[in-house]
């Protein structure tokens, strides 16, 4: 979720983020708000169901593993709502996006799935694809490129004695 200055949105979206991790909530809120979107965050599936029923959202970003009610159950519940809220597009945000899991998410009524850690460009492209509109565009400006280069830089420590000691230690493990 880096390089925030290199994207912009041509329309403001109302986005619900259902995510129990305050850290993931925070990075999604920070990123999406920086694009001008209005973001509401909730901590579990039950709150997500309530929020979708109480307010119109353009899209929901739904975590899967949440307390009280998980993302799959929440999606099923939203799809059974007797109003237009049932049609709210839902994107699964999951650290487990195996083929089997994705099939489960889509079967529950989710529209798409995006991997965690969330890649910013992939997230925006996914939102545009699900909404069927080109809302976001990348701005390959100087600031953005600099930010990406700084944030993505690998830390290289010349002293790798800890790593060497670790490798020696694990070399003694065997499967017998």
């Amino acid at each position, binding site marked *: *979720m*880096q390089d925030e200055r290199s994207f912009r949105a041509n329309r403001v979206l109302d986005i619900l983020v259902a995510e129990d*991790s305050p*850290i*993931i*909530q*925070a*990075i999604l*809120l*920070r990123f999406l708000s920086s694009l001008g979107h*209005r973001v*509401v965050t*909730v901590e579990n599936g*039950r709150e997500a*169901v*309530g*929020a979708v*029923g*109480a*307010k119109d959202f353009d899209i929901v970003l739904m975590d899967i*593993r949440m307390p009280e009610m998980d993302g799959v159950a929440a999606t099923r519940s939203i*799809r*059974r*709502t*007797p109003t237009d809220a*049932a*049609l709210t597009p839902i994107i699964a945000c999951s*650290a*487990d996006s195996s*083929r089997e899991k*994705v*099939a489960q998410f*889509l079967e529950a*009524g*989710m*529209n*798409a*799935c*995006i991997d*965690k*850690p969330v890649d910013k460009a992939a997230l925006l492209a*996914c939102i545009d*694809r*699900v909404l069927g509109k080109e809302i976001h565009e990348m701005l390959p400006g100087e600031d953005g490129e600099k930010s990406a280069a700084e944030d*993505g*830089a*690998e*830390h*290289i*420590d010349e002293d*790798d004695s*800890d*790593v060497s000691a*670790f*490798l020696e230690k*694990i*070399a003694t*493990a*065997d*499967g017998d």
Partner: protein
Amino acid sequence: MSEDELQEGAFEVIHVPDIISERVMLNGPNAVDVDALDKMDMAFVEKISNNYLAFFHDDLEALKAAFSSLSEDRQNREKIEHLYTISHDIKGQAGSFGFDLITAIADLLCSSIENMDAIGDKQLEIIGFHVEAMRIAEMKKMKGMGGPAGEKLFVGLQGVVSKVMRPNDPSPA
């Protein structure tokens, strides 16, 4: 749904059922206060973004505690699940702040213990190696994949996981 559609996360037409078995709670004690939900501590957001490793440290301590607890009760499915959940959260978070190696280690741990009902001596040792590898990545502040040292660490860990946790898998390249 075809495999291609699954892979691309294609848009799916949703058929809303006629029978309503579950209603959204708009009023009453469990109703959601949307206005209240709309508020968020932006200072917290900035703090996390600027210093993720401090938050990771707490997760790592939680992982160590879960590992310690599991080591004393290796057939407890709930304890395995707890350790999995912490690792799953780390996997989803670290890479968002550029700590790809930590995410990769957490991913390896998740896939190693997923669906396990009990942990043997060797498996426990390997889980401990994951915790140790994360500790080194934290101590060295390894961003990205941690450069050559990080790559060596991860390849070494992958190798021992293949050998011990998943002996039937082909060796990593």
